[in-house]
């Protein structure tokens, strides 16, 4: 095995971690992690930019908490799995292109291109996602749009990669009896050692993915709040719930004569805060579940939106547009779909955990609806509008 030193070739890498079986197994795990990320991410995107055909249930109240927690935690698990997979296939980087055979050269180029797209997109999604959950943006692009676009690149690259590698993966992942027939049956001492080396590498990869999840899952799993050293949020914060956007950041000044306005085709009604507080109140345990994957439940007290519309004489069973005192920013208004607007748990909350809402939590009143992203739970509400 003495070779003159120079640019490495794939055969230089002899460790069992580079076996096709390891690459195929890791590929399958990564496929699951990326698949979960993509599906839950797509759901979150549609919730915030709903196409006409899209509907989302209001029950269970923790549904969005669950899907977005899955999104972020499967992304965290994918970090060590991606690195393990890339280490496993690192020798393939040094395959010399078959320059003299045009057809094989084309296949080689296609494979390299698909892998390049996949790896670029995978790193991009994991790195930008990780910075986003810490609300750190050391780049010049608009995160949600770029993260969404590159997700399609990642899925496209993944599908191309599977299309190219399917025959190899099928052989590698088939049961040992079949594999032995396909490859070779000799069970020597070296094979045994390689098999245990492969198992050790796979177990380490899975274990490290588990540790990474455990180290961050406190953002959304209550009993891990104080255990996860790297949770970017927990349930602490003013009145027991963290704040994403403060009243100062949103430049909120509540006017002395603040009144809630309810508008519908052919009618208008207004209420003062005292009048709102005098209406029958309902208390509900609902989570704030943020796109950043953190979530925390609180006890909210307020007037159900559907009851408020009935009291005013406005039509129900339709979408409702909620406007904030906030005039700057993308989340100054939100639209409650008809299902959420009609749900008796959708509250215009005045109180949180038994206290009056603090300015940062949306005083004088805020929207809190079951199974919705936190960015759509509009704070500092000033108007409800039932469109035509």
């Amino acid at each position, binding site marked *: 095995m003495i070779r003159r030193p120079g640019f490495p070739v794939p055969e230089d890498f002899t460790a069992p971690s580079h076996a096709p079986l390891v690459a195929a197994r890791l590929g399958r795990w990564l496929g699951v992690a990326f698949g979960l990320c993509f599906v839950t991410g797509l759901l979150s995107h549609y919730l915030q930019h709903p196409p006409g055909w899209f509907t989302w249930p209001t029950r269970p109240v923790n549904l969005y908490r669950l899907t977005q927690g899955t999104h972020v935690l499967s992304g965290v698990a994918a*970090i060590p799995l991606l690195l393990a997979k890339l280490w496993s296939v690192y020798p393939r980087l040094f395959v010399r292109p078959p320059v003299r055979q045009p057809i094989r050269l084309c296949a080689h180029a296609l494979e390299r291109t698909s892998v390049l797209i996949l790896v670029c997109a995978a*790193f991009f999604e994991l*790195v930008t996602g990780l910075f986003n959950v810490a609300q750190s943006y050391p780049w*010049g692009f608009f995160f949600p749009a770029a993260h969404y676009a590159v997700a399609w690149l990642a899925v496209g690259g993944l*599908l191309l990669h599977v299309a190219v590698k399917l025959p190899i993966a099928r052989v590698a992942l088939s049961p040992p009896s079949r594999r032995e027939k396909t490859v070779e049956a000799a069970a020597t001492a070296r094979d045994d050692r390689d098999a245990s080396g492969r198992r050790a590498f796979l*177990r380490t990869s899975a274990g490290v993915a588990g540790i990474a999840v455990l180290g961050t899952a406190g953002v959304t799993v209550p009993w891990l709040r104080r255990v996860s050293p790297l949770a970017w949020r927990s349930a602490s914060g003013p009145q027991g719930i963290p*704040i994403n956007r*403060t009243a100062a950041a949103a430049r909120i000044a509540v006017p002395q004569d603040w009144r809630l306005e309810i508008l519908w085709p052919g009618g208008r009604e207004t209420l003062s805060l005292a009048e709102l507080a005098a209406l029958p109140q309902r208390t509900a345990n609902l989570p704030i579940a943020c796109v950043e994957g953190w979530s925390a439940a609180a006890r909210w007290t307020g007037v159900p939106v559907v009851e408020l519309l009935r009291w005013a004489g406005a039509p129900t069973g339709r979408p409702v547009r909620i406007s904030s005192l906030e005039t700057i920013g993308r989340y100054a208004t939100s639209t409650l779909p008809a299902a959420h607007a009609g749900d008796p748990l959708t509250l215009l909350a005045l109180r949180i955990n038994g206290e009056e809402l603090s300015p940062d939590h949306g005083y004088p009143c805020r929207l809190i609806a079951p199974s919705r992203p936190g960015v759509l739970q509009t704070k500092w509400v000033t108007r409800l509008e039932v469109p035509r």
Partner: protein
Amino acid sequence: MRAVRLLLLLLGVAATAYGGRLLLPQLGTTVPWLIGGPVLHDLLVAPLVGLVGLALGRLVTDRLRLAWISAGLAASATLLLVAVPLLWRPPSAPPNPGLPDRDYPLALTAGLAVLWTVIAIVLVVTAVSRRVPHRPTDSS
């Protein structure tokens, strides 16, 4: 299988093209972040991992011990990577009560300490348990 592969290929091309079209308006600012990952990994991270692996293989000859130490290093590196945005935060974000949730350098140190304590315990336990059943045969 040919039909499945062809279908995957077509879906892959369609998804990639759609993603590319969506990304077009932000291509200039995203390209460095797209290329950066593979370049950093292939030129820096992977060779470094290989060198550390070679050196570790020379230093630790027992295979079980080597496996546990490698696992500890992999877990530590992953925790460090996940911690980067929490430890290195450009001050662009507005202050958010509840966001700098804990003392992250301290939490990370504690996490790593727990990890390596567990690994040290496992190594000691396996070394002891291995020695005990072998003793009668060793003395014979």
